[in-house]
């Protein structure tokens, strides 16, 4: 384990029920810090969430803080836009290659041959996809790293001011709650304000997009988007605070789990991880280096179905 920090991962929270169960598991009375940056402009609209919680909460307003930073630090926003352009171009190239590699893998998994065993061909086809994912992961990580170095974020006066304010707020809380939303924005804001490194032992509860941001890799997925191919794709590195887990929030709605080839491909492509289906009732609790799972929590199995996480 990279860290012994207590981390609880949850799925979507339309009623905040498992969120409160998770808070109970921490046995805290609060207050807690709230990060709703993934809601973007709706960040301040946390009234329902706060009133549903069993403990008091203070919103760190990370989205608003970055908006303010971008208003005053024009060089910073310009450089970040340049970074986004580079990442977008890399993504476009990745998508082109991914489309062909995945089509080839799907073809191999759909095909039966009466004379020969196609398993080596299937493994080879899926390995091509893994290589592509790895290359893209490394390329995007390099771009992010280069810009972080160039931007010297930690020494920019406004960033220092906001980081201090965030640290001060975190000083008085017993846990950090990270909501779902736009996964890339959550990741970027957490990195920007160094939230998860500020107080190392503070427990974290993160749901949906928030859970994705804590993982080693962020993978976007949806089998039936109204536009686009629907090919699952790596975004880039997450914060790497939980290893061996690839959180798949709302996977029952977003993935066709009755398609064994699709499930097999997903599970084998990301076989370094447990591809965990996070639904409204799922709770994954890492404490003292071990994972506890709520009953019924499932993962994508390489055999093309859902399987209990402890199997």
């Amino acid at each position, binding site marked *: 384990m990279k860290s012994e920090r207590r981390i609880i991962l949850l799925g*979507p929270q339309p009623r905040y029920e498992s969120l409160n169960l998770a808070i109970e598991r921490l046995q805290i009375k609060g207050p807690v810090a709230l990060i709703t940056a993934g809601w973007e*402009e709706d960040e301040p609209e946390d009234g329902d969430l706060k009133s549903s919680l069993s403990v008091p909460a203070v919103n760190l307003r990370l989205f608003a803080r970055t908006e303010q930073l971008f208003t005053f630090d024009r060089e910073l926003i310009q450089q970040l836009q340049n970074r986004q352009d580079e990442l977008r171009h890399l993504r476009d190239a990745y998508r082109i290659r991914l489309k062909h590699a995945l089509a080839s893998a799907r073809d191999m998994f759909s095909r039966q041959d009466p004379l020969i065993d196609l398993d080596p061909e299937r493994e080879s086809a899926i390995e091509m996809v893994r290589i592509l994912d790895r290359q893209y992961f490394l390329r995007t990580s390099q771009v992010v790293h280069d810009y972080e170095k160039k931007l010297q974020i930690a020494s920019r006066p406004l960033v220092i001011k906001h980081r201090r304010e965030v640290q001060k707020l975190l000083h008085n809380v017993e846990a950090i709650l990270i909501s*779902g*939303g*736009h996964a890339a924005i959550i990741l970027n804001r957490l990195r920007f304000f160094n939230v998860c490194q500020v107080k190392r032992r503070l427990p974290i509860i993160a749901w949906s997009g928030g859970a994705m941001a804590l993982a080693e890799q962020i993978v976007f997925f949806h089998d039936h*988007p*109204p536009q686009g191919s629907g090919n699952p794709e790596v975004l880039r590195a997450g914060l790497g605070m939980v290893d061996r887990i690839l959180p798949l929030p*709302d996977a029952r709605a977003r993935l066709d789990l009755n398609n064994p080839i699709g499930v097999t491909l997903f599970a084998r492509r990301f076989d370094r991880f447990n591809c965990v289906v996070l639904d409204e009732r799922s709770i994954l609790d890492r404490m003292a280096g071990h994972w506890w799972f709520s009953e019924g929590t499932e993962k994508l199995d390489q055999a093309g179905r859902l399987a209990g996480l402890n199997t």
Partner: protein
Amino acid sequence: MISSVVAKILPAGATPEAIKHFIESHQFPIVENNTVTFVFVGEAQQVELRHWIYGLPSSIPLARLERTNVWYRTVEFPLGSRIEYKFGVTRSGHNQWIHDPLNPNIAHDPFGGNSVVHSCGYRIPEWSYHNEQSRSGHLIDLEIPSRAFGDARKIRVYVPAKYRDYRRYRLVIVHDGDDYLRYSSLKNVLDNLIHRLEIPQLIVALTNPGNRLQEYADDPRHADHLVNEVLPTLETRFPLITDPAGRCLAGASFGGVASLATAWRYPGVFGSLLLQSGSFAFTDIGDHNRSPAFDPVVKFMNQFRRNPGDFTKRIFLSCGVYESLIYENRSMYAFLNQLGIDTKFSEAFDGHNWENWRDRLRDALSWLYPGPLWVTYM
């Protein structure tokens, strides 16, 4: 004629009890794979199927089952078809068009609606129904004084449920807005697609014409009204993205012509267009053979095709395969592609009607204005 399920089940001279049992034990029309059997029961001299499928005879007679008052006809349709129809029933020498009495499904439109049947493979999209989970947007009534028309025009504006005045919104201006609301379930569609994150939160202005055939057929007053009266009013009243990329004009049939003509008269104002079954009649030589209402349309389309200019960036085009306009729209697609406009074309086994236009809205809106679905995990 394709052998009919009716002739297989009911014998000639079937008793009233046998006919009653047959009616009670089936849903009508009878849909089997790629065939639809239309059935009418009643005294008549003649019964015919009246439909709006270009390519088939507009009137298809039903056969009478000998020594009964049962009339039937089996017609082959491609899978996934949606067919609107009426029966023409002749009694005492008088022909009357009626809804199918055995079919409760009616597609409504401004002219009163038609019976509708779906062949295998067609489903009404679930995103067109009211969904309790989807937060409901609001409709705001506005009245805009019009110098162009010398009167005042009422429009409705859809604002999304999570509308905030500190945000910036994309805009869609829709022709025949009330008809889109009433017959294409536009409000349900917007609520659901926004809820599903398939489109961003949008402001949608629902406009309505005065004299539709005149104003929508490249009337310069209409373009002036939209660009110089409606748009500024909306930009003052709502926090809109004041950039062509954030403005879309939409319309169906003559509304498609009005959208195209307005965008063409004011190049660069609207970054995208949604054109459904546009009445894009044109001639390469000679006269057109449509009704006189098309005269100004053909004149405009011929001008447009000669001198399109750089008027917009993206166009979603759709048309039913069962419309006579399919040829003009296919031609339009090729033409727009040649111009280098980013164009998407969608065809469906359907006719010139509001439910066809409803069914294409998800594909259209999510392509023109993609939502944050892919990156958002709530």
